[in-house]
């Protein structure tokens, strides 16, 4: 008789398996990146000891540093563009496209947006909106170009975007000189015409000020709001719309998606357009901060965005965790230079180790999850079968 009981109980108890204890689910999900972080701490501590340093002191320095309000603000400022960049990369990843071109896309977008913003004076909302729009359009076009090369010329998207990164740098070097603000070299250095105050996104200083006083030049970037909107939009688009379903289906199995009515080319092109237009937003924080584009414009946000997307497994919350972790390392690498407790290269070593171990971490978590669920089933079945 047991056989039949078992058959029934499979099903009747199934419901609860997935819904099992949401807290432990969240902990398990965060376990991989945090575990990787801890492991990288240990590994780099060993490296430090080998090099004759004192890891405990270094960690203590990092932590005391990170406990300061202005450092936390600066961490969020750094994490904001990284997050947007991570989302841009993730959109490509979801479609199985490796968009390495976020780098070129955001820089192109930034110089155009800064130029457009500097060329006009408008009521604030319109002015800011125009800058944001310009950034998205140019980023989208640059990403879309790589998409077109891929869908219509068969150029692999990795090659295409790398190539376009190079082209972008060249174009920008030329544009910077061409669009250089007149006679500005003396006062503000080389760069595009400064954007009038009406075009600068207000900061969010009122938030940190709830917790204490900020130093004179510290600001919490207003782009944080845009990043949050991007994150929510990314989640909704991907998980709640038919378009997002199509995109994910295409990424998971292009043949099945095609038979299910998803045109692969159109999807690839749209994904690149979308990824590019989000990439376009990456440079905004810097534009609103400096009020212009100059040759010292922040670089490597695109590449770091890829790392952050990997770290967060393309999940909107995961990417945020990754971006904050990256920003934490960034912010604390500065202090190591000051205190001299460790060379700041140790931070790069840690990043490398984190990226490598997080992959393993996710696999371990997957297995642990599977094992515990299987064990839970077994226990239930044992209960149910007398």
């Amino acid at each position, binding site marked *: 008789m047991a*056989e*039949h009981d*078992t*058959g029934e109980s*499979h*099903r009747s*108890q*199934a*419901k609860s*398996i*997935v819904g099992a204890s949401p807290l432990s689910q969240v902990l398990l999900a965060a376990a991989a990146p945090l575990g990787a972080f801890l492991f990288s701490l240990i590994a780099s501590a060993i490296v430090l000891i080998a090099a004759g340093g004192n890891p405990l002191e270094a960690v203590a320095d990092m932590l005391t540093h990170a406990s300061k309000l202005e450092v936390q603000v600066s961490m969020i400022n750094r994490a904001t563009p990284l997050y947007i960049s991570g989302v841009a990369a993730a959109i490509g990843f979801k479609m199985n496209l490796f968009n390495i071109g976020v780098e070129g896309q955001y820089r192109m977008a930034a110089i155009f947006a800064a130029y457009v913003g500097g060329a006009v004076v408008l009521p604030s909302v319109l002015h800011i909106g125009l800058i944001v729009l310009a950034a998205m359009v140019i980023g989208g076009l640059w990403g879309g170009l790589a998409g077109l090369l891929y869908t219509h010329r068969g150029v692999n998207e990795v090659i295409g975007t790398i190539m376009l990164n190079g082209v972008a740098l060249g174009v920008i070097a030329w544009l910077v000189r061409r669009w250089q603000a007149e006679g500005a070299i003396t006062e503000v250095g080389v760069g595009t015409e400064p954007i009038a105050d009406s075009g600068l996104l207000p900061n969010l200083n009122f938030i940190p000020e709830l917790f204490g006083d900020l130093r004179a030049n510290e600001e919490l970037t207003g782009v944080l709001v845009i990043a949050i909107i991007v994150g929510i939009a990314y989640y909704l688009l991907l*998980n*709640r*719309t*038919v*378009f*997002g*379903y*199509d995109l*994910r*289906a295409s990424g*998971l*199995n292009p*043949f*099945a*998606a*095609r*038979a*299910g*009515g*998803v*045109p692969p080319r159109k999807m690839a092109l749209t994904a690149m357009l979308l990824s590019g237009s989000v990439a376009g937003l990456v440079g905004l924080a810097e534009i609103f901060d400096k009020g212009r584009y100059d040759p010292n414009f922040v670089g490597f946000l695109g590449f770091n965005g890829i790392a952050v997307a990997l770290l967060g497994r393309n999940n909107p919350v995961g990417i945020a965790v990754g971006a904050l972790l990256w920003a934490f390392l960034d912010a604390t690498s500065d202090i190591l230079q000051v205190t001299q407790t460790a060379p700041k290269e140790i931070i790069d070593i840690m990043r490398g180790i984190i990226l490598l171990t997080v992959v393993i971490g996710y696999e371990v978590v997957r297995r642990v999850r*599977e094992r515990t*669920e*299987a*064990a839970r*089933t*077994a226990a239930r*079945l044992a209960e149910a079968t007398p």
Partner: protein
Amino acid sequence: MALAIELSGVTKRFPGVVANDKVDLAVETGEIHAICGENGAGKSTLMKILFGMQNPDEGTVRVHGEEVQFSSPADAIGRGIGMVHQHFMLADQLNVLENVILGAEPLASFGRIDFKAAKKHLRKVGEAYGLDVDPHDLVESLEVGERQRVEIIKVLYRGAKILILDEPTAVLVPHEVDELFRNMRELKAAGETILFIDHKLDEVLEIADTITVLRQGRTVATVKPTAVSSGDLAEMMVGAELPTPQTSRSTVTTEVALSISGLTVLDEDNRRVVDDVDLEVRRGEIVGLAGVEGNGQTELVGAIIGTQPTASGSIRLLNVEIADQTVRKRRNAGVGYIPQDRQQEGLLLFAPLWENAALGHQTKPPFANGRWFDRFGARERTEAIRGWFDVRTPDIEVTANALSGGNQQKLIVGRELTAKPKVLIAAHPTRGIDVGAQAAVWDDIRAARAEGMGTLLISADLEELIGLSDTIVVIHKGKLTATVDPASITARQLGSYMTGTDQDLPQPTHAGKTADNRNREDSTARDNG
């Protein structure tokens, strides 16, 4: 006799299911041992454990009397065990030789691959077991039967003495099955031990020396084929008597559901893989398309679905031209599709079942609400499919790859039928589905037919083709070469038509059961003569 394999008390749990529950299995050296059981009974899982792909939670595995613990297939291969999977695992873009040596490349100096030695070894293996393949053929260009031979050779090449074949006959037409069985007997004569899984019980009775039946993860019986009938086997598998399939009566109407004329598809070398095909499917009619795989069926189906560009011809769905429409438009207009390869074209293996249930129907209710994906509706529909089509799963949140092969197939069949298509393109709809569920799927297709669905049925299972179809057309080298009446043809005769050796056969009837109300569009029959 010495035991090649002895499993005792093997248990394997997955989230929500116990796939194997204290299974015992003893396989003698040099025998052909069949494993039977319903979809989801745990057959593939047991074989994967034996092949080192899964670790058992409990129990012991003995190979030639020695207890082993495999941590990967490499260990199993080291012990002389080889496996051909339910879903083939060949690299399409590589040739036969490259596929065979993949992962076991003989090396020459400087780490180069020694292709010469590989080829020699391959030839030797092929000759020893009477299997022949051309090492230079691109796998992409092979027919299923040949692909399977490549899979088997691949395993033998690695020196396997124990062979595991998971549903090897599911994709084969009868003469290919005969060929496979001939190969299996030769392998056995050469001292190999063979374990195989099969849902076609007559085949099992024909080839097996011993049969073990699994039910819900447990061994229920080990029997000799001489001592049981296929009915007995089926009863052991399901623990109840088989449902008798409904007797069918014609529901063919005069209204044309799908009409194809002058359809031609060219391949890359401009050969006519579908050659001026005219075909009509009426509402309430099932038209069987018989043919050896690789004669243009795939391209014809692709052309109807819209994934295959056509050179010329018209395709009309309920009198509306669809040949120039997108796949999505066609599917939304009522073209249902059961692909021949469920994992390649039918599923998102790493997405949950409820997302899989939406595939191909994602723009319409209950899966969509305008531009929004309706998760609630999708889940509800999936639960309905699960209940109605008996998809065995602990939960609809699991990913599709956690389903057994037959249950994946049932999910696809359920997805297409519940969408109530006007025309269903069904390629091997019951591939990998167990006997009981197969009868149920046939009933479901017949019920949909009675409601006016037109069906184009492709199947390697000629009994299915004859039993289900109202009319059968034969495709050979891209042309429709005959129209036959399923009521007056045997599987063997049909097989002869399919291979184009129909000279000595009686003239095929140009008309099916419904000849009278047919305005003979499909007069291309026998235009090869």
